[in-house]
């Protein structure tokens, strides 16, 4: 049984239809990249899978749980148990340092554990930047804090929306290498949205979105 399954997923906004009956299955532990031009529906697809947006019709099943009809709070609980998010912008709390930003995710999940948070930051190569605030970190470092925060609760699914969109090539490579290493170690599922062809070649599968539909679905060699 697929880890993620979308059946006829459609999303209609007031002025446009972002998804048009998308069917998709993703296996547990797979790294899937979603590419496509702006407005093709790739971010909407990611948000629907993460429960940040709701479907107009169709349904989504993740890890055997039908999430389509869940209330906002029930979806929040589901999200903190099984999903980690990384966004294009770092979205770190400016008045908290790196460790505390990671601990915030623990706080809403169960209990904050500083040692665990420090360990997570060491795994992303930030053992020397633990008490730095976001304003004292580079863009690449901020994104690594976000990855540590997303993975601190050991989610089964990592959703990344243009995680390297604001980074230069060197930092992009660092982030992708890090994701690859963690993916190989922990075998969580990754769905990553990007418009960067370089980024899209990292992973095991690429789907190309166009006008709210999956235009192309191809498996690639895992770098």
């Amino acid at each position, binding site marked *: 049984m697929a880890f993620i399954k979308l059946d006829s997923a459609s999303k209609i906004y007031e002025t446009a239809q972002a998804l048009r009956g998308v069917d998709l299955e993703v296996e547990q532990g797979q790294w899937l990249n979603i590419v496509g031009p702006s407005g093709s529906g790739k*971010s909407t697809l990611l*948000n629907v899978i*993460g429960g*940040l*947006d709701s479907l107009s019709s169709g349904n989504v099943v993740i890890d055997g749980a039908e999430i389509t009809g869940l209330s*906002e*709070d029930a979806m*929040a*609980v589901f*999200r*903190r*148990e099984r*999903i980690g*998010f990384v*966004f294009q*912008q770092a*979205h770190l*709390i400016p*008045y*908290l340092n790196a460790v*505390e930003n990671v*601990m*915030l*995710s623990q*706080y*809403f*999940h169960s209990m*904050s554990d500083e040692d665990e948070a420090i360990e997570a930051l060491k795994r992303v190569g930030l053992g020397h930047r633990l008490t730095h605030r976001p304003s004292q970190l580079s863009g690449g470092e901020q994104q690594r804090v976000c990855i540590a*925060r997303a993975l601190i609760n050991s989610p089964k699914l990592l959703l990344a929306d243009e995680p390297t969109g604001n980074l230069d090539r060197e930092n992009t490579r660092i982030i992708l290498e890090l994701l690859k290493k963690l993916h190989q170690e922990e075998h969580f599922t990754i769905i990553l949205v990007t418009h960067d062809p370089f980024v899209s070649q990292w992973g095991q599968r690429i789907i190309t979105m166009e006008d709210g539909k999956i235009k192309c679905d191809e498996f690639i060699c895992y770098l």
Partner: protein
Amino acid sequence: MVFFKKSISERKGRVAIASFAVVLAVTAITGLLGITVGIREKLGTELRAYGANIVVYTEAGAYLTEDFGARISAMSNVEEATSQLMANVVFENMSFESVGLDFQQIKGRGWRLSGNWPKEQGEILVGINLKSALKLEAGKRIKLVGQGNSGPGKEFLVAGFVEMGGNEDNAFILSLPDLWSITGLAPKVSAVLVRGMPGALDAVVANIKRDFKDVSVKTMRQVAVAEDLLLQKIQLLLALITIVVLFSASVSVASTMGATVLERRKEIGLMKAIGATKKEIGLFYKVEAVFIGLCGGIGGFIIGFAVIQAVSKGAFNSFVNIPFYIFGAAVSIGVAVSVFSSLIPVRGALKYNSAAILRGD
């Protein structure tokens, strides 16, 4: 807890602005509450200068006894009771009205005095109209004899002259023991002048009529009604001002808190994305609002307290006692204003689609 502490300690400027808005609100409300409570006491003291507002007497020719005054004083809602004796005295073969009373009890109660206030027995005051008619001067000694009394009378020192605009202006004012001594009427009194609490005069009158069967009780309506109306109007005015201030202060705090919450929309969106429920996010901001309310409430009370004392000192030349519950009320109002003012913007922010917020839409 660490997030809450950091949220406060690392955002001192924002917290200070929000707290300042609460301080302003609570200062205004504490000031008005304090003045409302304190001014009644102060005004009551000031209004006491107008004298009695109830008279207890018997029918013509009859007298009460001196102990009536003490018994009425002991009644509830009675601030004080003064016994007075009205009798005629003879001076240089002419008959004049005289009033016997306790000088200490009526000292400073709206009597316009020229000369000195009598310090001991044997000293009297004279109504202002008699000063020129009888060619009297302060310091002069005169002899008064009780009319209808066969006694030799007594010599008195004229301490000063009084002007009340009433019958007293044509009378000799003696201490009660002095008048008793020359009239032989001890321990009789003609009337007991009662100072009842404004607003409770009807109850005082009912109590006197219940406890003393053969007396007449008259309310000095003009004084009583005027006092009551004055106090009621002042309290109503202050209550209206308090409501207006509370409303405008709440709007001010709400807009400050609203701006603060709007600035933190991304923070709220992020919390939702990492799995916080609406209740958990709401609690986070409520705790912060309670802290801001407590700081603003305590600060506002301290400033408001100082304002009240300054007003009281200026208006009444004395400080006012503020009951402790005003402190509790001020802090509670601060917390309530802060929490309720942040509820609407937080609820509004919680309704936003977190995906849109985090995209920066």
